[in-house]
């Protein structure tokens, strides 16, 4: 669907060269909600703008539905852009046009007949739940309503792809959830492939199916959201995940636990079906030891369960060791080191 092939983008700022995107290869499949996460300055905004060539790559190519977009003429590119809807952090609505006028704009560009424009605008307004706001101007709307107009405008020409530039970053948590629900609906109902960038792990966690983590212009980790969340490789990825799910007690609590003479702590991860089975109690009972859950959570990601438990084992040291060995064959277990971060 969208494929970045060894794409780099270098900006020249006076005499200094800024490598915003470095050798990125990434594949977004049809129907994905693909999230790119990174701290500000990681290059994700530039990467997103390479999709519709608002920025041109310095090296590499971008293929959309098998076509190398960098080879398109100016006119072909304008046509291609009608197939890629885009929404923005600051909505970027035309203040001189009404809500209906904003949504009609891309249709006018595409040369759609007037009566068709009217029906389509009404349809879109109903879809985003703003049927009563057609004649309002953007400055009369709330942030969430503005983004709904932005989404309706981006969908007007029935694009195959929707790209979202920090679409929820300017919204409060409730409105964010609304807009994310709407994006999910867009993906499900119209089969539109979504590529979004964000610095908020909640966004990735709640809507994305795939994720790529960017740092200093490079993609340092990518894959299915469930896999990346349950088995992060890179420190930056771990930091992002930690921002939405506390997978360890805070360092102070850990220190207290050790001072009070608490034993070794182990982290167990249960992914998918294992989370439904009583692994801990079965194994500990078998070896004649008991366990104490110190900390933990079970959550849902991509409609699969993911458990993260911090436990200590009580009983004969040899039996504990045997039990840990057996648990290791069933699911992930590791000893919690002093203080990880």
């Amino acid at each position, binding site marked *: 669907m969208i494929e970045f092939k060894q794409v780099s983008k270098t900006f020249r700022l006076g005499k200094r060269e800024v490598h915003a995107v470095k050798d990125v290869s990434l594949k977004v499949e049809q129907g994905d909600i693909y999230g790119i996460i990174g701290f500000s300055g990681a290059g994700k905004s530039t990467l997103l703008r390479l999709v*519709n060539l*608002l920025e041109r790559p310095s090296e590499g190519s971008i293929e959309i539905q098998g076509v190398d977009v960098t080879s398109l003429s*100016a006119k072909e*590119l*304008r*046509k*291609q*852009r*009608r197939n*890629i809807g*885009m929404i*923005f952090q*600051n909505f*970027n*609505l*035309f*203040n*001189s*046009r009404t809500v209906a006028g904003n949504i009609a*704009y*891309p249709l*006018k*560009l*595409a040369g759609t007949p007037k009566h068709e424009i009217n029906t389509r605008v009404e349809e879109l307004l109903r879809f985003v739940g703003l049927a009563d706001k057609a004649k309002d*101007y953007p400055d009369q709307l709330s942030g969430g309503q503005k983004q709904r107009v932005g989404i309706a*405008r981006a969908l007007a*020409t029935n694009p195959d792809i929707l790209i979202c530039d920090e679409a929820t970053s300017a919204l409060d948590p409730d409105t964010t959830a609304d807009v994310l629900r709407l994006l999910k609906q867009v993906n499900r109902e119209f089969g539109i492939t979504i590529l979004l960038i964000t610095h908020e792990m909640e966004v990735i966690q709640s809507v994305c199916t795939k994720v790529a983590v960017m740092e200093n212009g490079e993609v340092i980790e990518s894959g299915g959201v469930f896999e990346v969340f349950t088995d992060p490789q890179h420190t930056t990825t771990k930091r992002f995940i930690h921002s939405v799910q506390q997978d360890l007690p805070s360092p102070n609590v850990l220190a207290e636990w050790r001072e009070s003479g608490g034993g070794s702590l182990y982290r167990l991860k249960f992914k998918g079906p294992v989370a439904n089975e009583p692994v801990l109690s079965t194994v500990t009972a078998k070896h004649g030891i008991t366990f104490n859950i110190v900390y933990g959570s079970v959550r849902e990601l991509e409609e699969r369960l993911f458990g993260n438990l911090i436990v200590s084992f009580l009983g004969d040291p040899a039996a504990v060791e045997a039990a840990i060995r057996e648990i290791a064959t069933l699911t992930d277990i590791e000893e919690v080191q002093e203080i990880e971060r």
Partner: protein
Amino acid sequence: MNVDWTTFWPRIIEATGQTITMVIATLIFGSILGIIMGLLLFVTRQNNILENKFVFNLLNIVINIIRPVPFIIFLVAISQLTRLVVGTTIGTAAAIFPMTIVASFTIARVVENNLVSIDPGVIEAAQAMGASPLRIIFTVLIPEALGPLVLGLTFVTVTLIDFSAVAGTVGGGGLGHIAMTYGYQRFDASVMIVTVLILIVLVQLAQWLGNTLSRKIMRR
């Protein structure tokens, strides 16, 4: 040595008409030229939709050369050109030519300033929707900047009323001419007061019209 007001009023009315003609004609010609130049200045800027260093620098330098020249000096300096274009250097038509040139450069800057204040994100959004540069100029830049632009043009109009008086002193006709010949050279304070009052009324009218129009456009 006071003027006979019964016969003088028609002259005042005629002069007011000349002033209004000069201002409106200049405003129309100057706006056409100025808006084109202002748009060119904006779109040819670095990183803008039709970036062109040559066009930008050329316009920028020409505007910066003309703008600081005091109008009365400019008026005299280009009189040969005025004669060439209009056929004479005396009268209302002859005043409109230099006024238009100066006004268009001023309007170019006003337009540029208003366009710069448009959120670049809005232009980016139009590009992302597949709008061509020309399309962006007419359907995004002009409508988005129109409210402040009308206020800017109102400001220029008030300056033009001032310029028309200056042009009047060197044979341009209008209220400036009357004020100079009767009020200044013949020491008739009553003529001076009347012309000044009429000029004040004209300025007020222009400002009121501009404010109303821009408020309507900006919906506030």
